[in-house]
């Protein structure tokens, strides 16, 4: 019986490995391989493997396309979105996490709306509204649009953070005559740090990978990494270029998401109070 269980485990694990190989490893391996095809030795049909591998394609894409501009735009939008979102989300998250009031559930449901509303609809009609108002500053309108898309996540993560601060710590601070600011600094802030950081990073990720809003509101000439990838995948399809830009988009994302996993799992809250 015991051997049998072990056998089942080995079979299921090898099946998992095989499926994941096809599901994840092959697609990413092909993308990396395409990005390393040397520009002067194209990879065409009869060759099973590219003739020459080099990083020249990466250098070429960086130098000849508008990728640097797109990177600059994406990475200057994202911090603005992250800071604005966390600033706007904090008071609302406090209300959801620590106060009881009538209509709280409805209010919480409304904050989830941007998650279910198709972004293309929001993008088109937000842009139409801006057009009617005669406002055309893509950087600003994309920051606002991304902020609204990121707010539900930031509010959720941070209200869970606020909720988890134990009342006795706050009471202790108050008993010792701490002012409101001191209470915030010594009772709330240390325990909120992970959720604030996680929200900031989540907003960065959302803004960096968001396509619909940037595409519609940035049209025609404000480009971000996703919109430049879209053009490489569409009307100017160059496979190796698309491979390079895909990796430019996906690698920072994966790193940031791994950091979030760490932050939200590293259970600082239970450790710092001794309560599980």
């Amino acid at each position, binding site marked *: 019986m015991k051997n049998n269980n072990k056998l089942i485990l080995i079979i299921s*694990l090898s099946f*998992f490995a095989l499926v994941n190989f096809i*599901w*994840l490893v092959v*697609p*990413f391996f*092909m*993308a990396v391989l395409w990005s390393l095809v040397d520009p002067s030795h194209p990879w065409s*049909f009869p060759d*099973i493997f590219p003739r020459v591998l080099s990083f020249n394609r990466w250098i070429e894409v960086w130098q000849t396309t508008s990728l640097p501009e797109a990177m600059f735009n994406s990475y200057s939008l994202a911090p603005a979105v992250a800071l604005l979102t966390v600033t706007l*989300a904090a*008071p*609302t*998250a*406090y*209300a959801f996490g620590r*106060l009881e*009031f009538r209509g709280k559930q409805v*209010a919480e449901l*409304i*904050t989830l*709306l*941007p*998650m*279910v*509303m*198709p*972004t*293309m*609809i*929001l993008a*088109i*009609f*937000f842009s*139409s*509204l801006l057009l*009617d108002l005669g406002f055309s500053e893509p950087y600003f309108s994309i920051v*606002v649009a991304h*902020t*609204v898309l990121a*707010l539900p996540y930031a*509010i959720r993560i941070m209200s869970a953070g606020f909720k988890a601060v134990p009342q006795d710590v706050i009471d202790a601070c108050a008993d010792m005559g701490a002012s409101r600011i001191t209470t915030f600094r010594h009772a709330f802030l240390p325990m909120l740090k992970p959720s604030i950081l996680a929200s900031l990073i989540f907003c960065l990720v959302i803004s960096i*990978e968001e*396509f*619909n809003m940037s595409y*519609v509101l940035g*049209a025609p000439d404000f480009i971000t990494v996703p919109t430049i*990838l*879209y053009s490489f*995948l*569409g009307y100017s399809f160059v*496979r190796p270029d698309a*491979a390079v830009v*895909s990796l430019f*988009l*996906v690698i920072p*994302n*994966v790193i940031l*998401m791994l950091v979030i*996993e760490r932050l939200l799992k590293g259970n600082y809250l239970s450790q710092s109070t001794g309560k599980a």
Partner: protein
Amino acid sequence: MKLWLLLLPGLGSIVFLMGSALYTIMIQSVGLHTELGASLDYWSDTLSDPILFRSIEYSLRTSVLGSLGAVILAYPIAMWLRKPIPGKTAIIGLLRAPMFVPGLVAAFLLINVISFHGILNESLLALGVIDKPLRITNDKFGWSVVMLQVWKNTPFALILLSSSINSIRSDVLDASADLGASAWANFSQVVFPLTIPALQAALILIFIGALGDFAFASIAGSRNVYSLSVLMHYTATAYYEWEKAAVIGLVIMVLSGLSAILITLMTRPFANRTRPVISASFLERSHEK
């Protein structure tokens, strides 16, 4: 008073932007913003256009198959993850990976694998399964889009279903196993009914996301049929027919709402089913022994 000040920055921004976009879409769909004044012509024009119905069919088809596929794939994985497995954290991390891959990158990865001389065709040729490479990119039916939806959304379905399955107390499952339920009976009559709320949430959220999809359809989708979002985008930005685009946008929203209701109604009976797990004759036989 103070409460309002707290809610205003977060909730207020959301309500303001969503509200103004919804207001614009409503106004434009009946042409209230033009000099001609309100009219239902945009509705009747758009709704009598066969292109819209082809788009509706295409979007519904890919969304139904995509959301069902993700959920059907997630159930066995979630059941498997209940068992103690060495390296579980790494496995869960790998399973969640597609969630962190931006949609456009996912579309590129798929196109790259299934292209005319891509690795799929070359492997099938080498294995002798086919003699000529298959032309399967941008297929008419939308299988590529379905594949992408399943790939991208399975982790999400897995998170929802896993947490629901893991919250079932193990004595409930032990009891049903003691009563002689097979693995399948255990799943279909004990686990499945208890996970219906999570299933509803997963199906509704994935379905609505897929129904409004723009990126997958415009890169990997059919070249002859547009998805609803692609059609709306073209109508607004290529033809500047904002009124018709507004009607299409409202059609997407109405379809999303109706589907959410339909999914809830269709799955609810499974949660309330009270058929006995094991037939009476089985119990009699086991008593005789």
